[in-house]
């Protein structure tokens, strides 16, 4: 069967394309997360992008916080932005809003210490975001080719099935998107320890190859410097229960999710790529941090390859993935045990356990998942992460320290 290579998306003024159409309320500091939630809850299509950024950040962390806030607001899935500030924090709501406004989308800001009281700010915020949503809901979806798509890929709860099925399938989707001129981002440098010789071979030049080695080995160097044993953390007890023995084994399975495309460059956490193709992003391995980093880098969607190394009963698991409303997150598994009962069907979007049972090969499963993927990006279907949004957690940020 022929796969259609177009999707329906929301065109933005800066020629980026949203696969969803939200108004975002973005707090500049975690102290005003409450206000963002109070404003957003009143209107359909208005989402609070709460996070844990705060005034203890300095140096590279402060740069990261600023990049993150601007990146979230500039994300193509967002059609309008209200930035909410406290007035006493290390970043300026006005400055963040002015940078987001460069995208051409309606953007404004409110600052608490310039308002009479909390209710006054919330009422203004509701009025502003309702106006914005009314405006952006008029945007007509258009047929778009896949070169406008940017996807982030992540693995979690990894076990042996991850390296054999869900990661290679994710890698095939990455290769397809890249071959159609789109963009893909993979992160989790510490989970490439032991696989650097494999992943770095795909660098487009020596400079990128050195950068790939640098971000992976920097993670290991910090462990050696601090005198800590990776085995207490990587692999996790869940990974070990699932059959993974060492970080090297986990990494060699994890690298499959990035496919076989050449790696064009290395990004800082939350940094938007300068071109199309596959990029490696520095940062954490924690999904709570990885998906927001992707969103800040302009991805419209994540693929989350999940093994059996975690409990299989919570729709928002792992790492409250339903909290990242800015991005649909497709949860993909290759572990047949993930699908043994109805509860687990509420937790996984698509299964490739057929690979483990020998009923499908990686190619066949990838074609099937790709069709599902196209339905999700066109908004014909929604992911579990988009449906179970009644529990929200603020997004954590990556940090390199020092922290005060």
């Amino acid at each position, binding site marked *: 069967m022929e796969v259609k290579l177009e999707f329906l998306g929301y065109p933005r003024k800066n020629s980026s394309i949203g696969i969803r159409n939200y108004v975002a309320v973005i707090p500049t500091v975690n102290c005003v997360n409450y206000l963002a939630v109070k404003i957003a809850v009143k209107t359909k299509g208005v989402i609070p992008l709460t996070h844990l950024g705060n005034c203890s950040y300095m140096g590279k962390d402060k740069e990261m916080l600023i990049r993150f806030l601007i990146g979230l607001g500039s994300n193509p899935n967002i059609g309008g932005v209200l930035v909410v500030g406290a007035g006493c924090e290390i970043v300026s709501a006005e400055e963040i809003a002015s940078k987001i406004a460069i995208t051409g989308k309606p953007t404004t800001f409110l600052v608490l210490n310039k308002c009479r009281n909390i209710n006054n700010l919330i009422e203004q915020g509701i009025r502003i975001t309702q106006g914005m949503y009314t405006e952006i809901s008029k945007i007509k979806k258009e047929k778009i080719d896949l070169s406008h798509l940017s996807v982030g890929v992540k693995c979690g709860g990894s*076990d*042996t*099935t991850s*390296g*054999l099925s869900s990661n290679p399938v994710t890698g095939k989707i990455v290769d397809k998107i890249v071959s159609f001129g789109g963009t893909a981002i993979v992160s989790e440098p*510490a989970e490439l*320890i*032991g*696989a650097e*010789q*494999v992943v770095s071979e795909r660098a487009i030049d020596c400079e990128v190859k050195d950068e790939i080695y640098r971000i992976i080995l920097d*993670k*290991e160097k910090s*462990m*050696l*410097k*601090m*005198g*800590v*044993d*990776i*085995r207490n953390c*990587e692999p996790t007890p869940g990974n*070990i229960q*699932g*059959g993974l*023995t*060492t*970080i*090297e*084994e986990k990494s*060699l*399975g994890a690298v499959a999710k990035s496919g076989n495309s050449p790696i064009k460059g290395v990004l800082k956490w939350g940094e938007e790529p300068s071109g199309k193709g596959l990029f490696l992003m520095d940062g954490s391995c924690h999904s709570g941090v990885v998906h927001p980093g992707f969103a800040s880098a302009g991805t419209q969607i994540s693929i989350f390859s999940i093994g*059996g190394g975690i409990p299989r009963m919570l729709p928002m698991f792992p790492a409250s993935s339903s909290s990242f409303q800015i991005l649909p997150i497709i949860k993909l598994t290759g*572990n047949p*045990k993930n699908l043994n009962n109805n509860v687990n069907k509420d937790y996984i979007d698509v299964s490739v356990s057929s690979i*483990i*049972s*020998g009923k499908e090969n990686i190619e066949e499963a990838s074609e099937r998942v790709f069709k599902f993927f196209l339905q999700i990006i066109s908004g014909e279907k929604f992911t579990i992460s988009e449906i179970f949004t009644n529990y929200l957690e603020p997004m954590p940020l990556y940090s390199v320290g020092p922290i005060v």
Partner: protein
Amino acid sequence: MRKALIINSLDNVANALSDINEGTLIEVETINGVKKIIVKNFIPFGHKFSVNLIKKGGDVIKYGEKIGKAIEDIQEGFHVHIHNVNSERGRGDLVLQ
């Protein structure tokens, strides 16, 4: 359905694709053709067993790459996991010693 899989012809471990009981005779594809192995421990789904003798201090190979070192001799057909394999990477604890 396959009971076990060797991913790369260089590998010295096979991956169980179902729970495998102790004493089960398993056929796996190796670089030298099909090899019959009697599995010596219960191997849970997703876990590994050795397809030949891995000497103490020898490399454990999966995906054709090193995934760690054997802490002891691991005879053919035995469970290969954290009790007999050590990671060599990210070991700040060894630096302190």
